């Protein structure tokens, strides 16, 4: 186990990093759906898309080249500028 670090800051902020503000509605928001490229992921996400569209969201679809590796930086950057929220299909 590696050594801890001593906080160099004023410690006025909590130690754990804050999550971004949550969306209060999906209406008129753009939601990204990431297919991690496992079998049948597309069918599952199609159903998720239908539900999101039914509440007024716009859905953009993405996929990782392979489920074995983390998403390429370019893909993460693209999603971060195109979407208000993102849902990733993590498993089979």
């Amino acid at each position: 186990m590696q050594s801890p670090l001593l906080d160099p800051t004023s410690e006025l902020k909590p130690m754990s990093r804050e999550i971004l503000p949550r969306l209060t509605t999906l209406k008129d928001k753009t939601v990204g759906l990431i297919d991690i490229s496992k079998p049948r992921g597309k069918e599952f996400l199609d159903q998720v898309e239908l539900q999101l569209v039914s509440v007024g969201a716009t859905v953009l679809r993405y996929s990782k080249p392979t489920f074995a590796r983390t998403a390429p930086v370019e893909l993460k950057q693209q999603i971060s500028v195109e979407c208000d929220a993102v849902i990733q299909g993590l498993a089979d």
Partner: protein
Amino acid sequence: MSDEPSSDIRNYRLFIKKDCPTCELIASTIEEISAALGDRIKIFVQDDPSFLSHLPNILDDSALESSYKEGITIVPTMTLANHPEVRVEGWDRAAWQEFFVGEHLFPTVGDGLPDHKPGCGSKTLDVGMPEKLKLRYENPCEARNIALSDDEDDIESCYERGWTDGLPVVPPTPLRVIRMLAGTNRDPSDIIGNIPPDNAPINIEKLAINAVMAGCKPEYMPLVIASVEAALQDKFCMHGLLCTTYFSSPVMIINGPVARHLNINSGVNALGQGHRANATIGRTLQLIIRNVGGGVPGGIDRAVMGNPGKYTYCFAEDESEKNWPTLAEDQGYDRSNSVISLFAGEGLQPILDQQSRSPDSLSKSMANSLRAVVNTKLYGLADAILIVCPEHRRVFHQAGWTKADLHEAISKQLLMPGAAIVRGVDGIAEGMPEKLKDKTIAKFRSGGLHIVTTGGTAGMFSAIISGWVASGERGSQLVSQIL
């Protein structure tokens, strides 16, 4: 009758290590003492617990806890358990025999051994060990611990937490911080002041954490502390300086013995890269502003461009010319004082003059270049530091000019008729207010032009560090802090 041991019963502690010829030499005497005193003596072995392991009162102190807590510096050391300050170090037969006055061991213990043989260094003093033991048995650090997973890269973690100036920092582990704290006698909990913009209190420990990250050596600590104290002087106006849209940031100039002791560059490339002290002492203040104060570029730091000196800007003055006063002397100190001065300034503007051989010509040349500070048509806004290179200083000195003569000549050259620089003149909208057209205006306010010498001895290149446009009482003034 109480079963408690009487206070006049003497108990002993002996500290030894196998890797010590003196301890080996007296092994038979240690056996004799062990047999005579029984459970009234504890024998702590610092390295190899097999050493004299047949004795019943041998204790394994390879973790060095007892040795550290008793402050053992030499082995062998014999102490009184209830009065550990009473001790005999190394082998000195007469002293050991004296130590056991009142015991059966007195006065024959050690007979047959040499009169005297010095001991060895205690393992508690091995290189790097004092800090490790301090961490293990005292841990004086109070700052929040940030745990890292084994998969995390510690340097990258510092980036992700927003602790860096864009360059990598040294991860501030407790061990490194304890090592840094050894560079000062100040208590880690001593508060130095409140760091803007958040006005968060900074203590010595928090300063040391940032000094570790900047890459400082422990011996830099007194100067780093002084730099923060200087920055917090009210007349330096650190809060406004770190927020400004202008270029400026703290410039550190070091005078006196500390500059030589810490090898702060005042020679070739003095304002450039390559010297640890210059690089890290200046950087520490900037990291403190960022991390403790919360002054982050794009946050409250609204500089349009900033300047490269916002990473670090620290140099020493060349004090080799005894008849040419230093900046610290100008501020009322003498050459025996170690002084740090802070100036709100930005990057360098060169003054190339390879032709002037008379002080009159060179001072006019310098004055002409100084007109460009801020804007050639704006006077009295910013202070400045004129850095006279050693070769230019020689021109003045050999002609019999003093530093005061140079200052006076430049100041005269920098008086300007208002009509020449008011708004609109030369087809340029910028300039001094129209109401000053009939006045004579000085480029610098009284006390606003400082003269410093630094740099290599070859090259007739002086320079200007232009100051913040909010100079003087309404903004920032040069401040000095004695160590």
